[in-house]
């Protein structure tokens, strides 16, 4: 196969993948707690045609070699965990994390998933659940008699009931953190799950042990920087065009060859 064609083809592939990542980032510009993805480009293996430094005779060495690169690939797609802006919503069960950490969510199969999306609500039993109805872990139930709910910076959830001036604590929100947050696997629905690369979760009380603090009545917005994404998009488009030009040029060379060798 013609290496010149295939090297350019890998470039097209990689730029196409980058465009999908940019499009997904831009599509999620309003998604609460969304973290932008960033593709990691890596050059592919080189074909060593002539080893540099090999003996050309017993006494002399080749001063240059010939290694042909075989193109590029997107090796990884890493999330950027920079803090998003905090948006005031006034919602009673809306929470944002300032700093590190994730809310723990119990999935229907009993496993835990993690999220930065703090837009919680109550189900018909008074349990605190996500927009998709999955309960927060450790579970918190707001009594039906509650007049108001207060969530402290350290995750203490307290309620006041009718006829009582004293607030009662009904639960404690805990956050999880990971040594390698980039290793978490996104599963959609604003959720991430633990992977072999992320390490085990380290659970703790908000505002302690380096975990972030909670703010009630606010949400963390997506951290997608639209300007960066648009600039990346322009760059991606031009790189795509160049690779496409490289393919057509190589094609013309081969065409010239076949047309003139009759």
């Amino acid at each position, binding site marked *: 196969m013609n290496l010149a064609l295939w*090297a350019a083809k890998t470039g097209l592939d*990689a730029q196409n993948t980058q465009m999908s990542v940019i499009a997904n980032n831009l599509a999620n510009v309003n998604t609460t707690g969304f973290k932008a993805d960033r593709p*990691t480009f*890596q050059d592919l*293996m080189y074909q060593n045609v002539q080893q540099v430094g090999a003996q050309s005779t017993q006494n002399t060495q080749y001063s240059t070699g010939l290694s042909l690169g075989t193109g590029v690939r997107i090796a990884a797609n890493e999330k950027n965990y920079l803090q998003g802006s905090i948006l005031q919503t006034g919602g009673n069960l809306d929470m944002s994390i300032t700093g590190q950490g994730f809310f723990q969510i119990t999935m229907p199969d009993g496993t835990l998933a993690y999220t930065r999306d703090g837009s919680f609500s109550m189900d018909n039993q008074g349990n605190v659940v996500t927009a998709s109805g999955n309960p927060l872990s450790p579970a918190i139930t707001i009594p039906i008699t509650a007049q108001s709910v207060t969530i402290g910076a350290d995750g203490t959830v307290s309620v006041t009931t009718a006829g009582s001036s004293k607030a009662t604590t009904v639960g404690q929100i805990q956050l999880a953190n990971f040594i390698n947050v980039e290793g978490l696997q996104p599963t959609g629905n604003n959720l991430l799950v633990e992977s072999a690369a992320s390490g085990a979760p*380290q659970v703790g009380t908000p505002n302690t042990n380096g975990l972030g603090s909670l703010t009630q009545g606010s949400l963390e917005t997506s951290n997608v920087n639209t300007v960066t994404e648009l600039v990346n998009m322009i760059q*991606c488009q031009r790189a795509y065009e160049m690779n496409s030009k*490289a393919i057509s040029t*190589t094609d013309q060379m081969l065409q010239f060859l076949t047309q003139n060798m009759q």
Partner: protein
Amino acid sequence: MDRGLYVAMTGAKQIMQAQAINNNNIANVSTPGFRADTVAFSSEPIYGPGYPTRVNAVAGNSGTDFTSGVMLSTNQPLDIAVNGKGFIAVQGADGKEAYTRAGQLNVDDSGVVKTATGFPVLSESGQVNVPPATSVTIGADGTVSVVPLGLSAAAQSQVDRIKLVNPPTASLVKGNDGLFRTVSGTKSPTDENVRLSSGALESSNVNSAQSLVNMIQLQRLYEFQIKSINSTDQNEQNSERMMVSG
């Protein structure tokens, strides 16, 4: 048979290889820290009976273009870019020291600092390990400091220092994995003058305009070679025809 045909054939073949190198550069226009490969042709006279009138062309990498790329600000604390000359020491798949300019780092589940391509970053004494931390900061001289998990920002402590080297670029070769190694295979000593910028990545140094012009030039050169194969062929045909008519 005129051996001129083979001279033109090797020319065409080598130009196609040069085009592959050029296309590989274009494919890596977005790869952080990528250094463009350059091509040089050398002439290889063919000695044999008679005069060495035929000279074949042989393509070779004249090496790598080590000019710096553009700094792209990313604001990620674990992204580092080498300012000016120098390289970041990493451990290749063979366990030996190799060098790269691609400073997109992350911490794996066991606390080892790795490049985005999975090679562990080296310090003077081995791999760079960080404990579970609230924040990891990389200083201009490669010093890695962390605020350990559970402690306040005042507890910032230095954990290690990334090995930065500045070997003469003439002594470096690009391996099949894209990392640089010294030709002699020896480790390069730490250079105190290499400086990093954190929160930034260095772009590929492929000059897209130049690569496109090279591409056109190589295409035309290729066509010259094919033309001369064609002409040699025609010469042969003409002389055959003369023989027949004579």
